[in-house]
């Protein structure tokens, strides 16, 4: 047998093409026919095809010149408290084994993931263990628990994870034909798990259906939290990790955010992007980059440059039939459901610029909940201003977490962006605030030398970073600086850190003076806020002077009826409560009057409440009762029933009625 000459090969080549497309039977017949026409050619072909059979048997060239990983045949071995049972899979990161507890103390199945030692590198073992320990503390009902992380005696790093039986969320939804609302409710569980991690400054980085499993009872479990980060050497990120994870299958980073492809900074907004891709898939059955086979380069280009088509637009009357059926709907109806709010929410989540997305999973969840409740969503620009205000007010009574600070800052930013929308000159302010917000993140996540420290950052530390930076930053954009100072000041107050709040409030007054002049309403507003902060600080003695200065400024402006005047009156009423009750009552009445004229003002409830608190102290308990009833009525109407304030109002109404020894009425209210 000889090698093939080039001429020989070019003759045979097209016949080989043909032969290789035929089934065994067809091939026999085809060769038979060929034999009668060109016996010589048929003979050569037959030889080559026989050779093909042989080479397939010996698996010729089937395995590349690559090194094997030394972890086959591990069954029965003990890893930590677990005994390996069988291999259940392998992927880009290494192999996965099913394991059970070896001490037999309780029955628990686990998945043990072996990672290539090279992935963590030399000297990375300590960091790997420490990071593993942090992830292990991440406990949430919708997150698969990380039970253990360590390195075997042979130097192989491993993770022990809660073993989850379930199917990928997209398959689960399709198989059960869940409608849009049911899908969103399921998705909210996913968001809950991610939000919990974000509050602990852990970013998932690899959210995709195969990492979001739904068990038979319908409960969602998120897998592989923070593992992408765990695998990175020294805090670097980007394509290497991404490609590593995707390799093994085709190169399809369908869920990757733009910043992951460009080695950008990975933040909570990166997860928001990946979550939004998942939401898009659940809603439409398609990927934002389209479903057709694409080359990796095209995919990269669409992720970086091309805005995804609106979710509603990919449901066409012809092609959308199956998607609609699987959502208990018709193409027309499904399209209507997606159009508007859901389109806007998904679009906001898929913004190329991380700062234009929802900043955390929590913010995305809030908007989806609003959608389900039929309320206006933040993603729709028209409602931003109103919603942001309400949100910040509501937050005063909320428990503060890192996530809520981030959301509050982002909401402040949203306000600026909305204002930029109506006034072009404001866009500089918005950009400046955006930059500042990003800087706080950066100071605190990926660029933090010690990832362990970064994860343990508390809400307080995050605020301190902001407060420290604000002095040097935004010097040429005072409007943005004023807003940031306001947000940071409010949050310090909410954390009960009065002195820190006062320091920021003072800076804001100074800045407002130099920007708008000392008799401006901006200065009066800043002074009122300072007065409010002083109340909880060690410099409380300065409060009266500051509030009266605010009052003089408003008087000069001839402003007696604004929202600001109302807020100042309440501050003054609170201040005089301990020194001059008559003045206090007088101011609270003024406040009530101001707010009554501004119809639909929720602060009216607070003003009425303030007056009702003061009246019994001046012997007018009886007049307090109708005021409290009105307080409750106003609050329920403007803030909804129930709302966080109502509980306080009802409690005080009950107490007042009891004081009046109106037992029957008191019992009714306290019941």
């Amino acid at each position, binding site marked *: *047998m*000889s*090698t*093939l000459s*080039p001429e020989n*090969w*070019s003759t045979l*080549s097209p016949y*080989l*093409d043909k032969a*290789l*497309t035929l089934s065994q039977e067809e091939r026999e017949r085809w060769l038979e026919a060929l034999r009668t026409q060109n016996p010589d050619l048929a003979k050569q072909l037959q030889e*080559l095809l026989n*050779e*093909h059979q*042989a*080479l397939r048997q010996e698996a*010729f*060239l089937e*395995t*590349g*010149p*690559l*090194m*094997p*990983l030394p*972890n*086959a045949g591990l069954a029965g071995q003990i890893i930590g408290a677990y005994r390996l049972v069988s291999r259940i899979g*392998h*992927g*880009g*990161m*290494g*192999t996965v084994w099913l394991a059970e507890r070896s001490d037999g103390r309780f029955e628990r199945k686990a998945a043990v993931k072996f990672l*290539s030692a*090279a*992935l963590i*590198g*030399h*000297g*990375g073992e300590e960091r790997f263990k420490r990071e593993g320990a942090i992830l292990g503390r991440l406990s949430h009902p919708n997150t698969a628990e990380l039970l253990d992380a360590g390195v075997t005696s042979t130097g192989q790093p491993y993770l022990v994870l809660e073993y989850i039986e379930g199917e990928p969320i997209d398959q689960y939804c399709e198989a059960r034909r869940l409608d849009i609302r049911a899908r969103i409710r399921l998705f909210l569980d996913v968001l809950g798990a991610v939000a919990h991690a974000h509050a602990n400054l852990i970013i998932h980085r690899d959210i995709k259906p195969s990492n979001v499993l739904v068990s038979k009872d319908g409960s969602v479990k998120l897998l592989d939290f923070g593992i992408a980060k765990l695998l990175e*050497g*020294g805090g*670097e990120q980007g*394509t*290497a990790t991404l*490609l*590593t994870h995707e*390799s093994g*299958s*085709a*190169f399809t980073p369908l869920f990757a955010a733009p910043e992951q*492809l*460009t080695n950008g900074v990975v933040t909570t907004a990166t997860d928001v992007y990946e979550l939004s891709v998942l939401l898009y898939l659940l809603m439409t059955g398609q990927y934002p980059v389209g479903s057709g*086979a*694409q*080359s*990796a*380069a095209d995919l*990269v280009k669409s992720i970086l440059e091309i805005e995804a088509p609106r979710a509603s637009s990919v449901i066409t009357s012809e092609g959308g039939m199956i998607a609609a059926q699987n959502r208990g709907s018709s193409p027309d109806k499904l399209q209507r459901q997606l159009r508007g709010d859901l389109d806007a929410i998904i679009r906001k989540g898929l913004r190329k610029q991380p700062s234009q997305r929802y900043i955390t999973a929590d913010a995305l969840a809030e908007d989806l909940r609003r959608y389900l409740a039929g309320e206006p969503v933040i993603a729709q620009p028209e409602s931003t201003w109103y919603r942001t205000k309400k949100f910040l007010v509501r937050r005063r009574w909320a428990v503060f977490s890192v996530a809520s600070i981030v959301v509050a800052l982002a909401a402040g930013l949203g306000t600026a962006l909305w204002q930029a929308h109506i006034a072009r000159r404001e866009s500089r302010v918005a950009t400046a605030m955006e930059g500042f917000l990003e800087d706080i993140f950066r100071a605190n996540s990926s660029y933090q030398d010690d990832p362990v420290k970064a994860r343990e950052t508390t809400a307080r530390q995050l605020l301190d970073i902001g407060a420290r930076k604000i002095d040097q930053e935004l010097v040429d954009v005072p409007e943005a600086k004023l807003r940031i100072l306001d947000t940071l000041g409010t949050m310090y107050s909410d954390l009960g850190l009065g002195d820190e709040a006062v320091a920021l409030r003072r800076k804001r007054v100074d800045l407002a003076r130099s920007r708008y002049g000392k008799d401006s309403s901006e200065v009066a507003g800043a002074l009122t806020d300072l007065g409010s902060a002083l109340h909880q600080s060690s410099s409380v003695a300065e409060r009266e002077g500051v509030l009266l200065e605010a009052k003089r400024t408003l008087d000069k402006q001839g402003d007696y009826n604004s929202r600001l005047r109302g807020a100042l009156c309440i501050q003054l009423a609170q201040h005089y409560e301990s020194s001059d009750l008559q003045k206090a009552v007088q101011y609270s009445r003024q406040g009530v009057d101001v707010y009554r004229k501004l119809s639909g003002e929720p602060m009216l409830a607070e003003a009425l409440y303030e007056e009702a608190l003061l009246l019994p102290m001046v012997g007018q308990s009886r007049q307090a009762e109708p005021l409290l009833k009105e307080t409750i009525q106003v609050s329920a109407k403007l803030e909804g029933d129930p709302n966080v304030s109502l509980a306080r109002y009802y409690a005080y109404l009950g107490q007042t009625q009891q004081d009046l020894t109106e037992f029957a009425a008191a019992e009714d209210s306290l019941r």
Partner: protein
Amino acid sequence: MRESQRHFLSRLGAVRLESNLSSLIAAAETGESTATEALFSALYAELHGMAKRELARRGGPSTLSVTTLLHEAYLNMASRDDAAFPDRARFMGYAARVMRGLIIDHARNRQAQKRGGQFEITSFENENVGHPADERELQRISDALDELGKVDRELAEFVDLKFFCGFSFAEIAAMRSLSERTVQRKWEKARIYLHRELRADLQL
């Protein structure tokens, strides 16, 4: 490996990448042999450099997926202003052939130095891979591939991508805008050719 090929592979960094890869590719495709050499040493330098950086970043002897390396090389180069490629498929074709050279060099180094070599190219996703890289065997395959490249360049490129770089049929199909079945058929054809070539070699 041909003597000339070895020669240019040894000229690391002789041509700086800034000298515009796209024009090198264009010249190489018209059959200009000095351009081909320049192109290959530019790519060799780039890929070798990337592998070394990867090694430094991870702080120890590293395993590195070839597929990953090539994808990264492409992303890296495609993001530069000066290197506008005719297309990704051709880039991968050239780069995969360079990669073959790197792998064989590496196998040779390792055999010579008993693990004292520079970096290791291994695959952690293909853990069922059997053969440790045998330098002489690889060299024979490489020579046969060079012969095949003369008759049918596309087939030879597929072998580089599949066998040496570990790309899947689906990936190669996506790169070339071909169906997976077509790629698989061509791969079978290439195997037949190479098998014949190598067996004949043995019988000599």
